[in-house]
């Protein structure tokens, strides 16, 4: 994993250093670090010659640009109406029970964070969730336990950047 300053410089080389390059750069940092720390926001501001508040104000607008420390795997459960009707609550309970965290929290070992999100666009296969960028649909409590077990195995096997 690249040190942040180098990562930001590379991202700026790739996307440019204009204001309209900001979002891809923020996304690039979140991709690797899972969140934007104060330090990374300052470095981005420095690299793009922007005020720090502009970076902060823009980043905090977007739900996927986290600014608090997150786990390696961010679970986002859809809570919009169809998923809610089709059993989102049970899925949430299953995850809370398995990982021992509530919505908004991260497991102590830093592997999973649990969040809720709005309509993912899989209403015909509700309930649905994202883990980082991967979508899982037609969930049942059992299916969710299977999926999470797989992630836990992955984490145990290799320390590499497994998405």
């Amino acid at each position: 994993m690249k040190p942040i300053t180098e990562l930001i410089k590379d991202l700026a080389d790739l996307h440019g250093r204009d204001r309209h390059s900001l979002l891809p750069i923020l996304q690039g940092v979140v991709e690797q670090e899972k969140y934007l720390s104060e330090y990374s926001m300052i470095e981005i501001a420095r690299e793009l010659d922007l005020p720090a508040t502009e970076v902060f104000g823009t980043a905090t607008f977007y739900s996927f640009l986290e600014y608090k420390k997150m786990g390696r795997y961010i679970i986002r459960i859809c809570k919009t109406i169809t998923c809610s009707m089709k059993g989102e609550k049970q899925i949430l309970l299953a995850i809370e029970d398995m990982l021992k965290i509530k919505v908004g929290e991260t497991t102590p070992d830093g592997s999973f964070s649990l969040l809720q999100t709005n309509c993912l666009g899989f209403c015909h296969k509700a309930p649905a969730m994202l883990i980082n960028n991967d979508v899982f649909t037609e969930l049942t409590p059992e299916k969710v336990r299977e999926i999470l077990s797989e992630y836990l195995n992955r984490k145990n096997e290799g320390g590499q950047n497994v998405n």
Partner: protein
Amino acid sequence: MSTNYQLKRADFIFKDENDWEEVLKNNINRPPNELINELISSELKGRGGAGFPTGLKWKISAEEVNDVKYVICNADEGEPGTFKDREILSKVPFKVLTAIAICGHVIGAKIGFIYLRGEYFFLQPELNKAINEFEYYCREIKFDFSIKIFMGSGAYICGEETALFESMEGKRGEPRNKPPFPSAFGYMGKPTVINNVETLAHTYTIFKYGSKRFYDLGVQYSRGSKLFSVSGDTPKPGIYELELGMSLADFVDEFGDDDTKAVQVGGASGFLVPRKRFSETNIGFQGKLVGISLPTGGSMMLFNSSRSMFNVLDNYLNFFAEESCGQCTPCRVGCQQLLRGIKAVKRGEKNAQYLDKMLKLAETMQFTAKCGLGQSVANSFSSIVENFREEMIY
């Protein structure tokens, strides 16, 4: 109801004859005016929910005098219950890319963007592959056009056209004042045509077959077919391409589960239609049809008698309170007042008359909010509260 009943289907979008190269080559050799007229006579209206005549939109941008113009495909599909654009982009991406390029030819743009919502990140690899192939072909036929993907990061409001521009410009997705309108002052202040994914897919059909084939479907003021995303209490959830103008009663006959209490047409910013109004409601754009005509992005969510309409409204208002950009007073505060208001009535903290005050507030939001989000909250709020008042109180 009767499982044999079938609404009028169409098959323009997903039928893929893999002939995009030909369609592209033919159409970039036609004069822009001809293509614009084709679109205008087809009476194609925007399929994202707003229903603006597509031909007119392209015409206005084409007539703007500016060296730099843009085409943007709005793939920030976020309306609850809508999932058709995702399918289009995964199954027939080349139709969309071709349509974007033809639009570029018509208005004089050299760059097209696809604003792809962050939740659809997994579509990127395949989409990028398609774009590479597409650009390769463009270079072969010496057509100067490139397409880039711009990723969103989790903000429903960025589906609003001016908020989308702000987002692409690296800022908060706060909608702008209109006028000026995107066709004249869009992304980076340049003339921009911004169209929904499905709208572009339909233009492909029109450019390939001519406007008549499209126009022949549907009804007056609501020509052509539309993709419907069906979900909820239905035995057949999924995506269906149907002719516009159908009656909701017929729709429920085919897609309901024999116990349909209400249908949400157009997602959280749409209207909830109770059973008693199914037969008088048609799905299409405003026109002189009998009864009510409801425009929609195609989201159809069915609720049966086991569902609490209070929970439904509570869910929508939570959604809006979170996803509002927070800029303007009526939407930022209004959504919270409506949400807490119905909770307070339900808990008995406020009496039933408070609902009437909320209805008036929703109406004010409709008149004064800065963008479509705030303006549309009243749609579901009023339709649910007026038709299911008892469920709000008891």
